[in-house]
């Protein structure tokens, strides 16, 4: 197991290094640069060159790469943001919490709802419930995040007034003490209901169909038939015996859904005006804020790689065959 973890860690570092190198050259070679956004009619070319010099953008690209990589590897310093004029680590830290809370909540909704509906449809295969669930999951799966978000805003916020339309806290919350106070936590939860539900439900469609199909496959296995013959109740067969086996590939899906979750969070944050990583990355790309783009890429790449590793470990935890294979390889 130790050897396996060591191998995976080395591979992960290599993958992240390659991703960052490609990202560095891709963003620097893209048209425009951070001074393009200064479209003041009076700004001269000389002034623009002075700004490029101040930002270190007039150095040869290989030199910029070596300097940047050196500061990242040797000092864990991601540089400073050209637009926020602060260290990238500070900028990322400011925006990470809302995205993390949104993503985790959405993930719980995605798999909670997905597993529940998938199991329900499998248990009543061919019934009206099954058909409704299948159609519903197809609609959720194929509906764009942004449209679902806009509809939720229109109906549940602007029209019904049940939920706030934007932000992560109320204006009055400034006067309610620390963010960890119950009132502020409740306020944040209230703000997160719509975006997390939209993001989670939009991704739950795929999980629903996957769980349903997995359960139907497992339903034909010998041990299920034996359990039924032994008089085990249908509820126990579904929720304990079948689901445990059907969830093995679902764990893999959980790890692999991280990239979709990140891209989905971007869209959701823009629609609901949430101050998260998605909006930060989006505005950084438009402003050609290279250090922030690379910082966000590093974070996303690390999350995806770690997600895959966790999925593999989870897979090993529930499937003895995988554990044996890992032990065999050392």
């Amino acid at each position, binding site marked *: 197991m130790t050897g396996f973890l060591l191998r995976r860690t080395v591979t992960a570092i290599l993958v992240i290094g390659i991703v960052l190198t490609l990202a560095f050259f891709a963003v620097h070679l*893209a*048209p*425009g*640069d951070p001074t*393009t*956004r*200064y*479209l*003041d*009619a*009076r*700004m*001269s*070319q*000389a*002034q623009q060159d*002075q*700004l490029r*010099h*101040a*930002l270190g953008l007039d150095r040869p690209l290989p030199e910029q790469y070596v300097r940047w990589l050196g500061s990242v590897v040797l000092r864990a310093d991601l*540089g*400073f*943001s050209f*637009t*926020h*004029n*602060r*260290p990238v680590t*500070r*900028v990322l830290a*400011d*925006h990470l919490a809302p995205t993390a809370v949104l993503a985790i909540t959405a993930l719980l909704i995605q798999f909670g709802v997905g597993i529940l509906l998938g199991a329900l449809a499998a248990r009543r295969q061919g019934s009206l419930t099954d058909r409704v669930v299948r159609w519903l999951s197809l609609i959720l799966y194929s509906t764009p995040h942004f449209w679902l978000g806009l509809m939720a*805003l229109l109906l549940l916020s*602007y029209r019904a*007034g*049940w*939920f*706030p*339309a*934007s*932000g*992560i*806290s*109320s*204006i*009055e919350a*400034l006067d309610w003490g620390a963010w960890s106070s119950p009132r502020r936590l*409740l306020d944040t939860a*209230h703000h997160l*209901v719509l975006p997390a539900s939209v993001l989670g439900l939009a991704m739950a469609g795929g999980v629903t169909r996957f769980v349903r199909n997995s359960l139907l496959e497992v339903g034909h296995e010998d041990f299920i038939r034996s359990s039924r013959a032994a008089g085990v109740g249908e509820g126990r067969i579904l929720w304990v015996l079948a689901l445990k086996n059907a969830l093995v590939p679902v764990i893999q899906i959980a790890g692999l859904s991280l990239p979709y979750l990140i891209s989905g969070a971007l869209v959701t944050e*823009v*629609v609901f*005006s949430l*101050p*998260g990583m998605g*909006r*930060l990355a989006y505005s950084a790309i*438009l402003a*050609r804020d290279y250090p922030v783009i690379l910082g966000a890429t590093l974070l996303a790449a690390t999350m995806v790689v770690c997600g895959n590793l966790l999925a593999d470990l989870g897979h090993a935890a529930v499937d003895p065959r995988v554990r044996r294979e890992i032990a065999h390889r050392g």
Partner: protein
Amino acid sequence: MSGRLALGCAVLVASFTACDRAPGGTYTTGNESARGGTVVIATGVDITGVNQLTGGGSRFEQDILDQLFLSLFQEQPDYAEHPPTFEPELAQDYTWSEDGKTLRLLLRPGIEWSDGVPITAADVVWTYTAQVNPEVAWEEAQSKDAIERVVAFDDHTVEFRFSEVYSSRLSDLNEGVILPKHAWSKLPFSEWRGNETWFLDNLVVSGPFMLARLQPQQQIVLERNENHFRQGYPKLDRLVFRVIPNRTNQVEHLLAGQVDFVEHVLPKRAADVERSGRTDLISKWHRQYTYIGWNGCQGLFEDASIRKAMTLAIDRESIVKALWGESARPAVSPILTSVWAFNPDLVPWPYDPDAARRLLAKAGWGDDDGDGYLDKDGRKFSFELATNGDNQIRADVAVLVQEQLRKIGVEARVSLLEFNSLWARHQSHGVDAIISAWGIDTSLNLTYAFHTDSIEDGKNYGCYSNAQVDELIALARRPARPEDAAPPLHRIQEILHEEQPYTFLWEPMRHYGVSKKVKNAQPNPLSAYFNLDEWWLAPVSS
């Protein structure tokens, strides 16, 4: 199961109060200006920090910094009839030397920073040194190019020496807010970039408001600066700028009572704001014009008659009406209709495709191969018409122009590009024609896009060059009194009208939405928050 789920949802919803409301209730309609209260403002963008010299340079950021820091003067929105006037702010009085090159300025006595330290001439001198420092690389540093030196004579007297006499000296001198030397000079200029957190930690202000909280991409909270020199101002206790990137969402927030002010109401939503009963709509002509820039660096649009033919073939009146309704008007000049120096004798070119065809035929363009498109020397009249794809109105205009030019046998190939890609190509003179816009200041210096020198060192990406225009631009800049620049500016407009380096499309109107409970809000094209310290809230009736 599903029943329990629905019940859970209902309990969850019921356990919360209704969503955010801007603090308020039922307001009286009394005319007495009250003090106190909070106004919530929707903004589409965030600020990058509090140091103007290293900041993001957006108009909104400038507006916020104007609430935190004083300038020497405040430019007034009275530029329709005459050059704009400047009301003293930090300055109390000033005199020009006889040769017009030296300005002696007297600072208002007894003004302090928020930490109680007096504001002196030393702050003004040090601010200038920061503004022109190459390591700081302030984006507006060129406004100080003609200032040779700044000297403090005593705590309240400072002298600016210019290298030449020109019309916008006061405007240039006034560019930028005055910064706190005692607080910020501790950090060397070489370390200013990348250290915004330091400036936030060491923030002292002189303006009507103080920064209470800055939550990136969420909200900016300003509170009254009790140390502000204007007695009884600002009227409001607190301002909350809520970041809501989507403009449609901003209007919905306004109509739902969740915000009190929106600085950019889209034309299609203006009527909703006007009709709502709880909000007012304020409309002003904006300081911007949209244009098609023709690339004269290459063969196709080098000839002025060809550019004029393009203008004649585009039905600008119909385009503006279709896309903007009453919220824009056709533009004819780089000097806006609403500005004192606009030449009223200019007659807009009509929509006249026949005249356009005749001009093109005279230049040797004809449909020799019968394919419906003009050609000359074996070359088809075909060019790329590019704009940034994230701007739907410009994208729509590109398609309409394409269709109208097709009728005279000209092929415009529409390219919708990402903003940075578009400008990178445009800056290297690589776009045949571009649909874009300029926001203009009131100095009316047309060098940026119409002077030959700006081809290499400016924004003259279409390579427009006319020796007479170059001379007139210099002549318009020369008079000591700005109003004396009117004759050369009028003549420049006549030449540009004749030669059409740009086809001027429209001047937009800016709609502001404001809650009826907010009183005395006077947004104008200089700033949506021009008199923010004078806004007040109608008292709440019990």
